[in-house]
């Protein structure tokens, strides 16, 4: 028989042992996740409608060697390090060529120079320029951009109704 005076001692050890069996040790750790600044300029996959609109069924407009469109690119820019390259990407259909004509612009938080006017052909080509002095998030009325699209005669004849849309993406990397 257990002597009654030993019961509290036994209960104490049973309690402490139960706790020890539950948790032996604990380690608090930490590390940092550092996200390199990536500035999103404008929206991804912006679609630009050419002017005048192409309507192959009506045969309007009459084929010329180029069409053009001008638009203002609205954007939000997030913090980015100085001299970060600004990448332009245009997804163009086969048979199309294009040229850029952009102007420097001044966002609220600093000076930004967009890519100089350039020409490229083919698909998924990249143009890089440098973006300066951004800090914070700034809204701007937009970047003036003119794009001229050249179409071959054959391509124009078979142009589908939805092909006069371009996917343009902008991002600072």
């Amino acid at each position, binding site marked *: *028989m*257990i*002597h009654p005076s*030993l019961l509290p*001692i*036994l209960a104490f*050890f*049973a309690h*402490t*042992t139960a706790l*020890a*069996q*539950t*948790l*032996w*040790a*604990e*380690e*608090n*750790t*930490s*590390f*940092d*996740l*550092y*996200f*390199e*600044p*990536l500035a*999103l300029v404008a929206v*991804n*996959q912006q679609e630009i409608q050419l002017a005048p609109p192409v309507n192959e069924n009506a045969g309007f407009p009459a084929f010329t060697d180029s069409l053009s469109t001008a638009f203002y690119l609205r954007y939000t820019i*997030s*913090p980015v390090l100085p001299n970060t390259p600004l*990448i*332009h*990407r245009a997804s163009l259909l086969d048979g199309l060529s294009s040229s850029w004509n952009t102007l420097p612009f001044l966002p609220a938080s600093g000076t930004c120079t967009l890519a100089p006017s350039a020409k490229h052909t083919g698909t998924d080509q*990249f143009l890089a320029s440098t973006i300066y002095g951004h800090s914070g998030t700034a809204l701007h009325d937009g970047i003036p951009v003119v794009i001229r699209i050249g179409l071959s005669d054959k391509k124009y004849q078979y142009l589908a109704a939805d092909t006069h849309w371009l996917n343009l*993406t*902008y*991002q600072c*990397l």
Partner: protein
Amino acid sequence: MSVRTLLLFIIHLIFNILNGQSLSVLYEENTVEITSVHLHPPQTAGADYAPTIVLSQGAFVTVQDVRSRTQWCLMAYSTTTLPGNTTLTIFPDISSVPAETVGMNTPSQLLLGAQPQPLFSGIGTVDQMLLTFTLDNAHVSQNVNTTPVYIQYQLQEGACPAGP
């Protein structure tokens, strides 16, 4: 129960209490960088981060002062709230330790949450078990600058409970 048996039982309990098991978790990196190479596709304008990013981070877990054949469970949880729906998952690399030290119910991965969840079920001493990490559902527009990640590891007696 005789007094002698009772004393032996108490000595056994005291031994268990004083036998201090130790847990050590060491990271390979203090800072893990997420850059444009983690975009999907990498280095592509307009792209967002890949849905799952394998972090260039590893951790080595060492459990000592545990008697052989004694089973234990390593639990983990985080007090960090990552932006948006971003989550962190830990993968125990059971190939990094002898097979006889891997216990029952070791999960293949642990999605870190605010409550302790089983990460690894071990037997006896384990030396430098490798943990790897993935970051899921990160977005360029939401994840910026530096985010500290706090992870608490707990060493508990007994095999891990069976998973769902």
